[in-house]
């Protein structure tokens, strides 16, 4: 039986190969971020939280490669990436400002098994995003919605200002609302009349958001490296079991 299980694992695992992705549609998410809906023939499907490697090749053969999180739910056909502009970033600049419908580039994925969640994993869920670190968490939220799961899910999104928010309208209307709690904190310029949090994530904020360590939530933290290190440490200091904390770090500036 064990041999059969191993064999099944080996044979059902799709090989990780470079595939050609064609841009089907682009959607502006903010002044600095754009969603690319891609058709990827042969795409084997993904789990919420996974990412892809994107490879661009210039006419002279120069190649550049970056990792981007998948934003779309596994239930959706194709793949959607949300890419945020990185100052001086040659790949993000192309993907956010230049690429057009019908353009092609190479893509490898889905990648990653550590930073993933499905409704079968249960809850509660604690999703903590710094800026565009929201993207893989959005895939989890869309998966939860597609499965009509009411698993307790608390989300905290830290952004500099209102202009940096992603998916704000969709988040406000996410189904099912039962068990779902979404909070924002603005670290530089809160919106006019804002009475919520307007500071960097801290211990008091995490206590206010819940669920606490006693509930053993599956915690997913994604964002710039500094954000992730600080928030993961706050969770550990707050009593969360490190084994329940999953992190993904973007580097100094993100994406």
């Amino acid at each position, binding site marked *: 039986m064990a041999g059969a299980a191993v064999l099944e694992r080996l044979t059902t695992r799709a090989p*990780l190969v470079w595939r050609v992705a064609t841009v089907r549609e682009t959607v502006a998410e903010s002044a600095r971020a754009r969603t690319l809906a891609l058709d990827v023939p042969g795409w084997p499907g993904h789990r919420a939280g996974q990412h892809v490697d994107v490879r661009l090749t210039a006419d002279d053969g120069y190649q550049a490669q970056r990792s981007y999180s998948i934003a779309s739910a596994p239930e959706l056909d194709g793949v959607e990436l949300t890419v945020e502009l990185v100052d001086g970033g040659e790949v993000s600049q192309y993907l956010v400002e230049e690429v057009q419908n019908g353009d092609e580039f190479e893509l*490898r994925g889905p990648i*990653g098994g*550590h*930073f993933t969640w499905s409704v079968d994993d249960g809850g509660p869920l604690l999703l903590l995003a710094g800026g565009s670190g929201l993207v893989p968490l959005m895939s989890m939220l869309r998966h939860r919605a597609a499965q009509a799961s009411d698993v307790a899910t608390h989300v905290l999104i830290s952004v500099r200002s209102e202009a940096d928010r992603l998916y704000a309208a969709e988040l406000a209307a996410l189904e099912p609302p039962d068990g779902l709690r979404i909070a924002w904190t603005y670290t530089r310029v809160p919106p006019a009349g804002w009475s919520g949090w307007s500071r960097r994530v801290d211990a008091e904020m995490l206590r206010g958001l819940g669920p606490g360590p006693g509930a053993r939530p599956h915690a997913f933290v994604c964002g710039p490296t500094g954000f992730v290190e600080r928030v993961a440490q706050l969770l550990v200091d707050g009593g969360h079991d490190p084994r329940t904390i999953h992190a*993904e*770090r973007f*580097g*100094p500036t993100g994406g």
Partner: protein
Amino acid sequence: MTELYTDGNHVAGLLAEFLAADMTSTLRRCQSCHGEHAIAEHRAYQGAGAVLRCPECGDVALRIAELDRDVVLEWRGTYRARRTG
């Protein structure tokens, strides 16, 4: 300057291409400090190739690089790797 690293998730594509398996959940026990952490939680420094470092002691865990069409992997900082069932 302390935030220039990413993490093992960003090396997962190259590792998967080489080892034909996702390695992010694989637990690696460090040869230096014997701390055990998922590959995804390791610090990744990327230049001409990538270096993974132990998140606990900072010692080199694994190096991987593409050289021409080859992929070269060196993991001598690893005492033991464990895949949980």
